[in-house]
């Protein structure tokens, strides 16, 4: 109940500034939008116009997945640690990581209320289609949830670095850059050369963003889909344990000033 209360409170406080947050949501739509046009042009120039429909669907889905998995609390947590306001998280009868997760869910309620209608409009405009079945939808839903959790835990771990670095935002920007390249935003993962595809498979960024889209659009055999979900789950467990341990280590040296 507390989790939902915090989530609802966050959503309502953000809706008071919905112009600002909708402009943020619009901003996050643009990179996949740009990539859609760029790759459409590349496919036309290389005589592969038949793949344009797939690329269009890839990036329209990427707009939804990116927004759904986006973790912005890692910015606020890092700033809260740096300014000493993190104390208010520690004083509440709820674990600070759970509070941050609840605020994340509340924020998503606001952003998705803008994102989904925009993507639907673009879907109709581009006349995109996907061949769906129950298994694809199930794998997509599970992968999407795991991707959101993984991205949150990863961001929270980096934000906790604010206790050692005065500006953890630099580390977070590094992470975002790698996510852009390896997570499927710069290019669809299917277009990666083999060495980059192997690298993306060995790092967590593909599992934070591209995997749900691949599972919905691709034609993976069930065994392969389950293997990918298992790898994603391992990343979630691993990053979760590291994030938890890192947070506990960080709290030992947290100091705050102010009345």
């Amino acid at each position, binding site marked *: 109940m507390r989790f939902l209360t915090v989530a609802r409170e966050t959503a309502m406080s953000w809706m008071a*500034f919905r*112009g*600002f947050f909708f*402009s*943020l949501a*619009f*901003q*996050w739509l*643009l*990179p996949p939008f*740009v990539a859609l*046009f*760029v*790759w459409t*042009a*590349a*496919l*036309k*120039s*290389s005589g*592969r116009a038949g793949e344009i429909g797939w690329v269009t669907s890839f990036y329209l889905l990427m707009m939804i997945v990116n927004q759904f998995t986006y973790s912005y609390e890692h910015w606020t947590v890092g700033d809260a640690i740096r300014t000493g306001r993190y104390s208010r998280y520690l004083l509440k009868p709820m674990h600070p990581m759970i509070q941050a997760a609840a605020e994340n869910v509340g924020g998503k309620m606001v952003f998705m209320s803008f994102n989904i209608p925009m993507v639907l409009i673009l879907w109709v405009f581009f006349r995109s289609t996907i061949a769906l079945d129950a298994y694809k939808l199930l794998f997509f839903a599970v992968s999407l949830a795991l991707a959101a959790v993984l991205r949150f835990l990863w961001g929270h771990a980096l934000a906790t670095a604010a206790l050692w*670095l*005065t*500006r953890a935002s*630099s*580390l977070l*920007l*590094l992470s975002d*850059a*790698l996510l*852009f*390249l390896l997570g499927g935003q*710069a*290019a669809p993962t299917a*277009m*990666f*050369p083999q060495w*980059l595809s192997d690298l993306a498979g060995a790092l967590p960024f593909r599992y934070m963003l591209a995997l749900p889209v691949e599972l919905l659009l691709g034609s993976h055999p069930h065994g392969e889909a389950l293997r990918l979900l298992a790898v994603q789950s391992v990343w979630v467990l691993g990053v979760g344990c590291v994030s938890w341990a890192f947070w506990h280590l960080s709290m030992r040296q947290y100091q705050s000033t102010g009345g």
Partner: protein
Amino acid sequence: MRTWLKLLWVYGKLASLQDAAFRANLLIGVLHGVLGFATALGSVFLLYNQAPVVNGWAAHEVVTLLGVYTLTHGVIGVFIGPSLEQLVEQVIDGSYDFVLLKPVKERIHSSVRVWRPVAVTECLLGFITVVAGMSRSVQSLTWGSAVVAVAIWAASVVTVYSILLFLASLAFYFKGSRLSWIFDSMFLMARYPVDIYPSWFRVVLTWVVPVAFVTTVPARALNASLSATDVLIALVVAVLANLLGTRVFDYGLRRYTSATG
């Protein structure tokens, strides 16, 4: 003029000293600039892994354009972007009074106050990339076209500054608006030539949000594929953008009411 140069020197020096005090952050800032550039370059190589020419642009020409983008982004990022971001925050919280009390012209002071020296990394990377991209077509570059290219690039910086000033000045009219973030995302589209986009979107990126004049036109000037009419249009766009930005700022300043006591 001497006062302004002295102010620029003082602000730049202070910011450099401040950044140097946090060496780990400075290093991460430099790495971030390098990594951001590497991912952009990586995107271009992934793209040209699929086709040697995309909508009439060869790989080295797009690399040149990316260099122009990075250089422009770096120049804006050194002091113009951070200063105008602070302008918005000061207008919102009412502390812009302290800027108005200073014995210098408000608009220029607000455009040069905050420095981010680490952005010089992007300037260097951009310049090197332009040179690397031009190495395949340097024989077509004459002194005249080089001068034209530099003038067009300077005009593109003025255009970007004017758009950012316009968006920042909207804070005088719409409290709480931070619309420069939208331009940052629109500016992402300048990483690629506008010819890559569909024709209807090209019109938007040329005449509504003049992203084309930021990178595509300067890159074409470097490739010596710009007509005299295009040069004139680019210069006129810069002048008009500057007029619009400065007028919106000046009228907005008249509406400013302090929130301090």
